[in-house]
């Protein structure tokens, strides 16, 4: 028998091709829209044209005359079931259908059910709503004015538009450090409101079966178990008779974490009519009404010595949460992990303060390819460090090196309370500098400047925080953020493994199979990974915040090791030695000192069902729920090099080098794909995307006509490299990589733009950085 190796198994570190791709390429994937149930009818949401208006009445009579329209549901119908409002994941309330007034443009006002999609859409157009416009609050700063209209008059005790104030760090010590500082810098920026914009919009097919008493909901959900629990808590549905199926998802990026009114409406409609009801958003509905991301107005300040040692960080943020506080953040952390904003630097004093407000905009604040506000944090510190470098006339590389947390400081406890697991920031940075040829680029830049040409080099040495989270302080609606893995090894040595997380394109079917292959000594091709069906999958809180590998990956390893423990007993029985004489080595059960005497996992599996040791249960299965002891802290250095047309402001990214360190790498090919995707999103945020509103609260770019996604033409060649610093506390040292590239890249790109114009006195450009913004600066400075 040939030797079993990680390579032969397709184990950890192998670029195994993605198992899921064949069905996608062949058009055999199965998305929510692909489910057609017998008798199925269609729902369409009537949405508010106004951002803030009183509802004097809703007249459905014309809609009910439209051929094919079966019913119209308004808040009045929902009140009976106590469902006109629902809780949000952040502990606030959100209207399922507006009752007394609408709070944002595109808010759900009524739900029309039709025999066809066309009938439902025609019916929705025929619903007449009598609105009385109210003063609109768009600017979050003005939302706090004493005379500002009170938006949430539905909430008892709510006297203004303030949602919360949250602070971390030591205010007094930070103030003192700033008072004593030799140098300080300050910059206000807006990490603009953007949208995850997954290719597949949100939707569901709800099937409340009056005969079986069972409810099945095919749903675009990144967290089907959590969503089922929420449904059971707020509606008459029972958890055990309700089945949520999250099938193939066309992207999520945090947008499919919240519970949306449409899901509730389709379910209520199905309950009312006794028929399956399909509701699928249009693109504009998705952009205009579902979870946006970011929208942090932040003032970042650094204090430092003249020679560039950072002594304090002060960050003050006003967060625009829109009409309802529906952000997806762990309950005890209203600003998520934002206090990670000391980043990769050993900063002795820090104070972070976040105030959140209501405005007349769509609710959200989801973690768009981001671990709960770490993107906003990373952007703030990486921009601030460049600002300080500019003030000190120091090379930004040197300033970073001078302030990095050093390898021997790990585990490192930051002044805001995070315990960083491991890192070697300078090493990753050096790999990036060498790859891009930093010194030569700086020389070229000097030569170009002398000729009046514009070239910028931007650096971001980010630290991520991933893998929420340890249950001692992380929960969503009280649910521990732990995740399960269940392994069944079948008699013939093949495996079905199920998880509580849910891939939206990350490639779990492949990477989890590789982890199990490595741990079980069975080929990845013989391991089937299933997720998303609450009837079969073990409990878990789903996939977001780069938590699948750190949490469910840990569960996979530890469940596999439980299988191996039982396997030891069976192998000992088969090899007629005592269990103490068996070791797991070379991906098989071997007799210590006599490696020729061995049993493979497949042999052991067969015996588990045919020849189990006396007194042992038959079978070879295990389940494990993993509670990570800590977060993981992936990091890296990104460098962006770009050239700017000094007459038009048009730019071209010439090089983009990304060096990531996410600890142990499971599948290098999938990792590269993840990084490419996140960098592309980062580029889009930095240069194209912003959800904008006029002063009446009208969304100005609620479609892909104006909310831009980059194409292959805009995307530069991503030049990747990596270092590997394993996490000391994760069972296989993996840290998670899904989001680093979105977290780290916007600052690198904006730093490059600012760098290109820094000799003209430019210190900040707000995202998205567009040619016209650059031109305006050049025009002001007399260049263009």
């Amino acid at each position: 028998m040939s030797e079993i190796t990680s390579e032969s198994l397709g184990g950890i570190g192998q670029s195994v091709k993605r198992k899921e791709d064949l069905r996608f390429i062949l058009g055999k994937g199965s998305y929510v829209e692909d489910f057609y149930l017998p008798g199925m009818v269609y729902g369409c949401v009537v949405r508010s044209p106004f951002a803030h208006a009183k509802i004097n009445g809703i007249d459905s009579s014309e809609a009910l005359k439209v051929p094919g329209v079966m019913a119209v549901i308004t808040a009045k119908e929902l009140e009976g079931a106590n469902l006109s409002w629902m809780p949000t994941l952040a502990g606030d309330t959100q209207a399922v259908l507006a009752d007394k007034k609408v709070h944002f443009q595109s808010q759900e006002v009524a739900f029309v059910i039709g025999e066809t999609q066309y009938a439902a859409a025609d019916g929705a157009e025929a619903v007449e709503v009598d609105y009385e416009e109210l003063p609109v609050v768009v600017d979050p700063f003005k939302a706090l004015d004493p005379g500002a209209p009170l938006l949430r008059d539905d909430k008892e005790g709510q006297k203004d538009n303030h949602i919360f104030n949250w602070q971390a760090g030591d205010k007094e010590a930070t103030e003192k450090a700033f008072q004593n500082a030799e140098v300080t810098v300050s910059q206000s920026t807006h990490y603009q409101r953007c949208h995850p914009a997954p290719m597949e919009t949100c939707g569901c097919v709800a099937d409340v079966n009056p005969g079986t008493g069972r409810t099945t909901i095919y749903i675009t959900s990144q967290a089907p178990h959590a969503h089922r629990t929420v449904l059971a808590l707020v509606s008459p549905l029972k958890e055990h008779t309700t089945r949520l199926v999250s099938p193939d998802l066309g992207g999520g990026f945090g947008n499919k974490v919240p519970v949306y009114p449409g899901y509730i409406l389709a379910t209520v409609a199905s309950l009312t009519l006794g028929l399956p009801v399909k509701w699928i958003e249009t693109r504009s509905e998705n952009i205009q009404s579902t979870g946006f991301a970011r929208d942090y107005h932040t003032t970042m300040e650094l204090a430092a010595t003249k020679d560039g040692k950072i002594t304090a960080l002060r960050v003050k943020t006003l967060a625009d949460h829109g009409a309802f506080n529906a952000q997806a953040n762990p309950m005890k952390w209203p600003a998520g992990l934002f206090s990670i904003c000391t980043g990769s630097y050993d900063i002795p004093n820090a104070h972070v303060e976040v105030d959140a407000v209501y405005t007349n905009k769509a609710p959200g604040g989801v973690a768009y390819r981001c671990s709960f506000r770490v993107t906003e944090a990373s952007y703030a510190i990486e921009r601030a460090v460049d600002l300080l470098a500019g003030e000190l006339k120091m090379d930004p590389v040197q300033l970073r090196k001078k302030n990095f947390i050093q390898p021997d400081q790990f585990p490192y406890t930051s002044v805001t309370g995070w315990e960083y697991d491991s890192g070697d920031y300078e090493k990753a940075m050096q790999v990036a500098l060498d790859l891009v040829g930093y010194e030569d680029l700086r020389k070229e830049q000097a030569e170009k400047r002398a000729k009046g040409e514009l070239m910028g080099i931007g650096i971001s040495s980010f630290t991520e925080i991933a893998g929420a989270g340890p249950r001692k302080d992380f929960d969503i609606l009280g649910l521990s953020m732990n995740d399960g893995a269940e392994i069944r090894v079948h008699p013939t040595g093949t495996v079905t493994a199920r998880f509580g997380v849910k891939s939206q394109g990350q490639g779990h079917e492949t990477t989890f199979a590789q982890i199990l292959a490595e741990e079980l000594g069975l080929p990845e091709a013989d391991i089937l990974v299933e997720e998303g069906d609450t009837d079969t999958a073990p409990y878990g809180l789903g996939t977001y915040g780069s938590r699948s590998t750190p949490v469910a990956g840990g569960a996979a390893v530890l469940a596999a090791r439980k299988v191996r423990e039982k396997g030891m007993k069976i192998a000992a029985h088969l090899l007629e030695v005592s269990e103490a004489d068996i070791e797991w080595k070379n991906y098989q059960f071997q007799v210590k000192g006599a490696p020729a005497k061995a049993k493979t996992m497949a042999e052991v599996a067969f015996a588990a069902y045919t020849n189990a040791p006396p007194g042992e249960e038959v079978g070879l299965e295990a389940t494990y729920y993993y509670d990570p002891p800590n977060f993981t802290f992936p990091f890296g250095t990104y460098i962006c090099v770009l050239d700017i047309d000094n007459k038009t402001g048009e730019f071209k990214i010439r090089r983009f080098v990304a060096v990531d360190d996410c600890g142990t790498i499971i599948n290098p090919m999938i990792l590269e794909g993840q990084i490419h995707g996140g960098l592309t999103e980062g580029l889009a945020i930095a240069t194209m995307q912003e959800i904008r509103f006029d002063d009446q609260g009208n969304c100005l770019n609620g479609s892909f006509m104006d909310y831009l996604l980059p194409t292959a033409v805009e995307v530069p060649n991503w030049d990747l490299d990596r270092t590997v610093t394993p996490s000391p506390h994760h069972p296989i040292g993996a840290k998670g990589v899904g989001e680093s590239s979105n977290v780290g890249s916007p600052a690198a790109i904006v730093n490059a733009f600012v760098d290109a114009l820094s000799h003209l006195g430019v210190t900040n450009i707000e995202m998205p950085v567009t040619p016209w913004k650059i031109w305006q600066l050049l025009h002001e400075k007399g260049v263009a």
Partner: protein
Amino acid sequence: MLPAQFEYHAPESLGDAIALLKQHGDEAKVLSGGHSLVPLMKLRFAAPAHIVDINGIPGLDYLKEENGVLKIGALVREADLETSDVVASKFPLILDTAKQIADPQVRNRATIAGNLAHGDPANDHPATMLALGAEVVIEGSGGERVLPVSELFVSTLTTALASDEIIKEVRVPVPPGKSGGAYLKIERRVGDFAIVAVAAQVTLDESGNIASAGIGLTNVAPVPVKATDAEASLAGKAPDEAALEEAGRLAAESCDPTTDNRAPAEYKRAMVKELTIRALRRAVERAQGGK
């Protein structure tokens, strides 16, 4: 994204199509490439009761040079321009334009005549055809008429076409020797409508001076702009930087942009100047035999 109900007609002759348009008046819209009309219908910004699909009408897809004129039939697709020898050899401006319209999928369906008939100043061919001095052949229930493209555009999304008229053919005079053109476009992202685009066409005389110039501007006014002052300023001049700069300045004066999602008006005006200079520069290079 579901359009309102409409009745679909697929006439097999131009006469039948015009009869349908006459019968249904303002309630009918012509469908050719559909890449402007269908999005408007899906968003229910437009809800025509009758769609007259002219794609099945034979004999409208010709692209040919005849008696010194390039004739573009009503059903010629943008993609056809990209692969045409006569376009490649004699109309660099048209080739530039065709390559920059939307994306290849759109160009496979969208038509040149439709691009003009929609009356959208954001479309690219109006500027190009203004710069080239093109005409359109219009067929209606009252018969056929020929109209210079410079007289086609009335206001945003409104043209001189009556509700029962169809652009049957676009006619572009073949430029004399020592001519060249170029189309330059600034866009937010490839495939988007222009923030600003400029079409420039020049013909040089024997001495190398500019004999005539045509300049069209995209998306900087309620209608496509023919920058006549800038054109006139170039006549008889040597194609030097001072002349191009002056033409750029005059072109910028002739536009009337607004601030929108794409950019502030001041940027658009400045870019009209810069792109006019650059487009003229390239047009002159091409007229002098360059690529």
